């Protein structure tokens, strides 16, 4: 090897062998490559949009949408409502079905999860079969089943299924009583707030007293009585300012009350039942993660089984349960986008679907939709981090 070549190799190697310099070179190369790719894609997109005569930017949000979504919880008018309004409507529909779904999935999931740990053989096995079957069938098939397989085969309006005379289920959806607020109804929510605050105060006082004197006070039942009782008393005292409008069969359809679309019912059922199977597994593993010694120690101290569960097992199990539980909530919210298959007007269906189709502004629509889910997921993970810090074991 010639001397010149050797010197050159040594010089090149020494730069490459320097860890810091190597890091800078690699990162600069990656950053430049990524930048070049971005410029390339942006340029292509601009050329393509210009060629197809598609506008860019967010002005389309102010244009009139010109279609009527089937289900709307925000005021919507066909003639004047804009694409921005459609976005809001889709967002509200997504959040509503997710929020109610989370409540039902949590209830069902905890019941099934506890049933998985039951001493009763039949209950235990039933819960296990539920979990295994539901988790291994695609959610989309379940949504289609509830919508086309169950709700479409319900009787027509005249032969509605009647529950207690208040709830009616038929092909057009679920009909139920709606509250009518008259003047002075604000006293009831006010009483509810007062009840909650009073319950918290009582709980704090009872805890302090127990710490000081060892005397117990039934804070839970008193708090419950305050939260439920005060609004009821307020309702009676103010002469029932809230009345209920009952659905009644008049002519070809129900009048009065509230109606819920079959798409909503189907999506809600499918999401709750599907997510509950995952929550059940989380609950089961959370409870099993608390070592048996904890139960034995609590019993040795003389705690009753209910108190053992409430004061010893549950707080420790929740520490294991909550992080994966929040990620299931996030999954449920993301999965609500599958409602598009049965035309539930959620964010993906009306905004990334219909508005995108009508305006052609695919980049903006898909980007906004993704951004919404990202924000939701960041909020949920921020909550999770806060909670984890709050309950983490303080060690050493």
């Amino acid at each position: 090897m010639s001397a010149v070549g050797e010197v050159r190799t040594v010089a090149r190697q020494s730069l490459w062998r320097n860890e810091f310099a190597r890091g800078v070179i690699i990162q600069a190369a990656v950053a430049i490559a990524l930048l070049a790719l971005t410029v390339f894609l942006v340029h292509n997109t601009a050329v393509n949009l210009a060629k197809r005569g598609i506008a860019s930017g967010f002005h389309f949000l102010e244009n009139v949408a010109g279609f009527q979504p089937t289900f709307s919880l925000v005021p919507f008018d066909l003639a004047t409502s804009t694409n921005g309004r459609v976005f809001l409507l889709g967002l509200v529909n997504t959040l509503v079905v997710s929020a109610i779904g989370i409540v039902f999935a949590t209830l069902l999931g905890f019941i099934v999860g506890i049933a998985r740990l039951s001493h009763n053989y039949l209950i235990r096995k039933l819960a296990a079969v539920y979990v295994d079957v539901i988790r291994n069938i695609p959610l989309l098939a379940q949504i289609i089943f509830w919508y086309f397989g169950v709700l479409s085969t319900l009787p027509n309006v005249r032969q509605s299924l009647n529950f207690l005379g208040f709830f009616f289920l038929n092909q057009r959806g679920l009909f139920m009583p709606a509250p009518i607020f008259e003047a002075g109804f604000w006293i009831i929510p006010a009483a509810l707030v007062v009840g909650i605050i009073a319950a918290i105060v009582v709980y704090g006082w009872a805890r302090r007293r127990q710490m000081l004197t060892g005397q117990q006070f039934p804070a839970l039942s008193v708090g419950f009585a305050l939260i439920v009782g005060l609004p009821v008393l307020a309702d009676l005292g103010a002469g029932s300012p809230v009345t209920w409008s009952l659905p009644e069969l008049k002519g070809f359809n129900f009048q009065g009350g509230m109606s819920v679309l079959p798409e909503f019912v189907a999506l809600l059922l499918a999401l709750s039942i599907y997510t509950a199977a995952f929550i059940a597994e989380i609950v089961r593993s959370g409870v099993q993660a608390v070592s048996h010694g904890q139960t034995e120690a609590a019993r040795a101290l003389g705690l009753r089984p209910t108190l053992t569960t409430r004061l010893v097992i549950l707080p420790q199990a929740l520490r294991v349960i909550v992080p994966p539980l929040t990620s299931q909530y996030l999954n449920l919210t993301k999965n609500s986008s599958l409602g598009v298959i049965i035309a539930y007007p959620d964010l993906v269906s009306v905004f990334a679907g219909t508005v995108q189709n009508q305006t052609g502004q695919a980049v903006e629509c898909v980007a906004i939709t993704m951004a919404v889910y990202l924000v939701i997921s960041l909020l949920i993970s921020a909550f999770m981090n806060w909670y984890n810090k709050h309950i983490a074991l303080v060690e050493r």
Partner: protein
Amino acid sequence: MAEITASTPHVALPDQPPPASEVGVVGWLRRNLFSSIPNTVLTLFALYLLYVIVPPLLNWAIFSANWQSGTSVKDCVWDGACWTMIRARFGILMYGFYPAEARWRVDVTFVLQFAAIAGLLIEGVPFKKYWAIFLFFIYPFVAFWLLYGGLGLPVIETASWGGLMLNLVLATTGIVLSLPLGILLALGRRSKLPIIRLLSVAFIEFVRGVPLITVLFMASVVFPLFMPEGVNFNKLLRVVIGIILFSAAYIAENVRGGLQAIPKGQYEGAMALGLNYWKMNGLVVLPQALRIAIPSIVNSFIGLFMDTTLVIIVGQIELLGMAQSSARDPNWLGTINTALAFVSMVFFIFCFSMSRYSQYLERKLYTGHKR
């Protein structure tokens, strides 16, 4: 009665048998089902649930179901499931519109795939290394050649791919091709270089924060805008790219879980031997980390396999889509429940066996690492 004398040794009488109510079937029932009043109520409730669900289901699916062959829903004379429809449309449900005379190619592809996977996973089968090399480096090209054609085989356009075959193709390519990308992302997330780490974290968290549907929308409506003029990507290819990017983020998190389980001593040992970054990871850390990550990667694969049904939304007709459109066929109106039952069974068989396998693996790996 025998007379007891001083010389009689003390011999224990044989044990009395336990009471009849404590052993055998009765004892089991008492312990597990009727130990207390609340427990008895629960048992009765469970029995009632079983009574409401099981007999009608069995009746619908088996006893009053239609098993005979036929050409339209009129041939389904019994009021249970119309398996006749599945029989009539079995080919289309499995292969989509793949030409009937070429379906052997799909069969060969998947037989090869299952053989290679079985060779890799079943204990006691020799030559693991060669199975892996075949599966990850040779098989993808063979599969592409068999399914798509060329080099002597007639070309079959991806537009006619469909049914279960499409689910399997999407899930397998998704997982196989996203594995290297996922490993790189996981390494990037733990890298000491800030820009690399930032980019990896941003990508992983972005993808995990959005639903697969939006990624598929992006693949079907936004990707074409990104391409230079005149470049036209195959629609299925765009969907596959979307799925690969999506599952790479999840695989990255699985691999990261494995990486975190590796003790620091392994890194330090590798560095002390003078191995550079890639050799340290490739020869020491990753082989151990991936072994630990296999169960969660299998779980990701199950999730991905079920998620492949979502491609109907962007117009690719896989098994669920084929079943749905079969039930909409004028000849087979009203067979949606049969169609869904069939699809559910297919997915259940695949996913349940895979999840059992991953549980088995988890147990096996757990004991291996217990100290």
